């Protein structure tokens, strides 16, 4: 089975080991130690870590398409946000008549806009199973349609990057509109509870953190399973020499479409877990700059390694938290410099550094020098 194969790999075991160890340590430190203890992990920190883990899952999704398929998506934020909106709509419906206007069906912003009834696309989101299915299906469907159109016409490389960026930009503009029925500028917020658990209690927050950790583990194993399967090897072949793979008889566009859709769904899950933890979803998650930031997490961590994406996402976002707290003006300088330095001096990312130091022969799926030059000529 392709899903169990990664579990026998040493690198995956190591990754899962570290991840679960970290989950347990945080849980214990949060629950067992009293508030005054210097080692106590506050609920705020737990939520913050949960947010990082969401980003890490998102980065893994991006690494899957960029690292193993050679598609630099500058629009993955759109899938993340769509998953987030699906979750947000569920959470909105859960508020029920506890909103400011006390309408049992309509969310507050609709009452405010004088809407009389629920738009059709909000139906069903009061049921958890439906909403959770939409978390996967909405981004998946968008990726399917978009990818089908793009890959069928063999739009690749820089062009694809630019139109993915246009896609997320168009969606951002659309979601900013009040008429769309997604809360416009303010987005969806003021959530109360999820599956009956109050979102404002520490226990729920811890639960969400653990759920995110498990989602990351599953996402990692799924991606690992895909890239070590035969399909994964074909996808690496598409990345390195698309035309040659096609001439060998593989249906390149199908491979690309499959991997792209899976990646979009993972991004959607990340978004869905992100929303209850930060308590809001608004159109800024669609902004092109966020999508391009995800790419730099992956680039910093090391492309085509998966675990590198996790490291990159956590490191960059930790740095962002620190910087924006201490000197907010400097953050964009630091981020900009990071973009430049990583691409110019650290093309293999942190994972590349680790690999060089250990000089171990990994599975060798990282992009080699020859692969990047062949990509340029394609």
């Amino acid at each position: 089975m392709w899903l169990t194969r990664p579990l026998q790999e040493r690198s995956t075991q190591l990754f899962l080991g570290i991840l679960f160890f970290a989950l347990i340590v945080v849980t214990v430190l949060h629950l067992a130690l009293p508030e005054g203890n210097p080692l106590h992990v506050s609920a705020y920190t737990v939520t913050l870590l949960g947010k990082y883990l969401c980003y890490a899952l998102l980065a893994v999704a991006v690494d899957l398409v960029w690292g193993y398929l050679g598609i630099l998506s500058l629009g993955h934020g759109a899938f993340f946000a769509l998953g987030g909106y699906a979750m947000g709509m569920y959470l909105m419906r859960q508020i029920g008549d506890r909103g400011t206007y006390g309408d049992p069906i309509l969310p507050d912003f609709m009452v405010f806009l004088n809407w009389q009834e629920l738009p059709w696309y909000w139906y069903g989101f009061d049921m958890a199973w439906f909403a959770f299915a939409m978390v996967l299906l909405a981004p998946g469907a968008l990726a399917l349609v978009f990818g089908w159109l793009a890959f069928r016409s063999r739009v690749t490389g820089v062009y694809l990057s630019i139109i993915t960026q246009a896609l997320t930009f168009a969606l951002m503009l659309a979601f900013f509109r009040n008429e769309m029925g997604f809360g416009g500028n303010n987005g969806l917020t003021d959530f109360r509870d999820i599956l009956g658990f109050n979102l404002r209690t520490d226990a729920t927050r811890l639960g969400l953190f653990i759920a995110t950790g498990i989602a990351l583990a599953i996402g990692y194993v799924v991606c690992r399973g895909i890239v070590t399967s035969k399909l994964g090897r074909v996808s690496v072949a598409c990345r390195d020499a698309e035309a040659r793979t096609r001439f060998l008889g593989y249906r390149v566009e199908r491979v690309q479409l499959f991997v792209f859709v899976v990646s979009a769904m993972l991004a959607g899950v990340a978004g869905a877990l992100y929303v209850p933890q930060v308590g809001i979803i608004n159109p800024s998650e669609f902004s092109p700059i966020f999508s391009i930031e995800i790419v730099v997490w992956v680039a910093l961590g090391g492309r085509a390694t998966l675990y590198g994406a996790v490291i990159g996402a956590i490191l960059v976002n930790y740095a962002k938290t620190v910087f924006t707290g201490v000197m907010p003006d400097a953050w964009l300088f630091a981020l900009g410099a990071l973009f430049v330095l990583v691409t110019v001096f650290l093309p293999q990312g942190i994972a590349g550094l680790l690999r060089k130091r250990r000089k171990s022969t990994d599975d060798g799926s990282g992009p080699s020098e020859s692969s990047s030059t062949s990509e340029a000529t394609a």
Partner: protein
Amino acid sequence: MSIPRWLTFFLMVLLMTTAGTVSAQQQDQTPEALLEQLADASPRDTEAAIKAIATSGHERARAWLEAYGNNRISQVEATGRIVIVLNNRGRDWEVADALTGENLGEMSRRDLDRIAINNAVRRQLAGVLAMLDLFAKDVAVREAAALDLLGKVDDAIVEEVTARIEEEPDAGVRNRLEEALAIYQVEEQGSLDAIEVLSGSLHPRARAALNSAVASEDPARKAAAEQALASIQQKLRLNNAAETLYFGLSLGSVLVLAAIGLAITFGVMGVINMAHGELIMLGAYTTWGMQQLLPGQPGLALILSIPAGFLVAALAGIAIERSVIQFLKGRPLETLLATFGVSLILQQLVRTVISPLNRTVVTPEWMSGSLVINDALSLTLNRMYVIGFALLVFTALMLIMRRTRLGLEVRAVTQNRAMARSMGIKATRVDIMTFALGSGVAGLAGVALSQLTNVGPNLGQNYIIDSFMVVVFGGVGNLWGTLVAGLTLGTINQLLEPWAGAVLAKIIVLVFIILFIQKRPKGLFPQKGRAAEG
């Protein structure tokens, strides 16, 4: 001393037949007498007094009548002198002599006897004031006065207007007067001929008159008015279409300006420069800086900032090329990321050094205002300048690429780098020059944009995606494609805006391009032959 009404009319008609010259009858009435007449007139005679002043041809007639309309004509009780009140706040009023305009200083308001005006007279005064300028020598003043008369013709002045039409030498002014008269005739008399006259008018007032005629009970009038309105609507639609096209072209030329530099760096060099928008921003800030350096001379500063903006952006471009892009040759996706980093740094730099807030760039006088084509269509000048500027820049770039040594070398390096180098072309130097050229053009776009939008740190970000869309839509490596694509997208956007709204129009255009790229991945004008394979 009051003059019979018929006599005033007689005098006035006489005056109009001898417009420009001063007739003997008027010399009988000294300015003092005219003012006396106004001051002493009983409410019934005020009208005549006003007309006497209006037709006197006195240079200060307008000042008197306006002051009168504003309740600012008074008589000094002690001396009987007529004064104009300049400032009526407080106990002491500042006054000026009505005859000479000489400032007489302040005077207690108790010593002043205000010459009263009632509303009926004030209404009539408006018409008379509108008439005053019809006697001016300057055609433009007469035309403005005639335009002002639309809808203001009433029983009191209709005869004068009719007389004036006969006398008016200028056809444009005459048409206006006929329009004004026709509005009166339609509204007051329901004349069919007048409806016919109005069917050629685009002025909103004419439409109002026709609408009132449509409401009439006389079927012939109603039909004629409806027909006239229909013909006007037709013309309005045409004018609207022309205006939309104009806005579309101006938006399109902004897009062309923003994208054409990108077409060079992206299309010709294959370099994705995400910092292109920030180079545009630098150009805009250069304009602002120039205006700070030359306060009070916005026009000169704007002209100087054209070369300055080019230089600043070109130098910044060279710096980016040398420090980042040259190390990433042949790795377009990495170049994209690195230059995006540069764009973040530049944005934050501007925020830190200058201000996170928008700066205002002054529009020089010769660029503001608009070109009036007719009552329904006027074209703003600044947009016209931007359209011209975009075409100019485009032509210059075409000439550089086609006719100069640099252009030849650029094309050679683009098509076959190794071969070009073996022919003795210094490819690295060509890279730098090309990048400088593309960046400099971005700076020029910034100078132009500073006249249309706010100059702020996010200026570039707003244009980068649009610019890429234009280049991709037009076909990479093809300047003509960029021109056509930019103008097309701008026009489509403006055509969609009235029924879809600005945001939705933009979304539709983006979706359209995304779909278009699926159909024609190489854009409108794909490169063909050897160059495409390089």
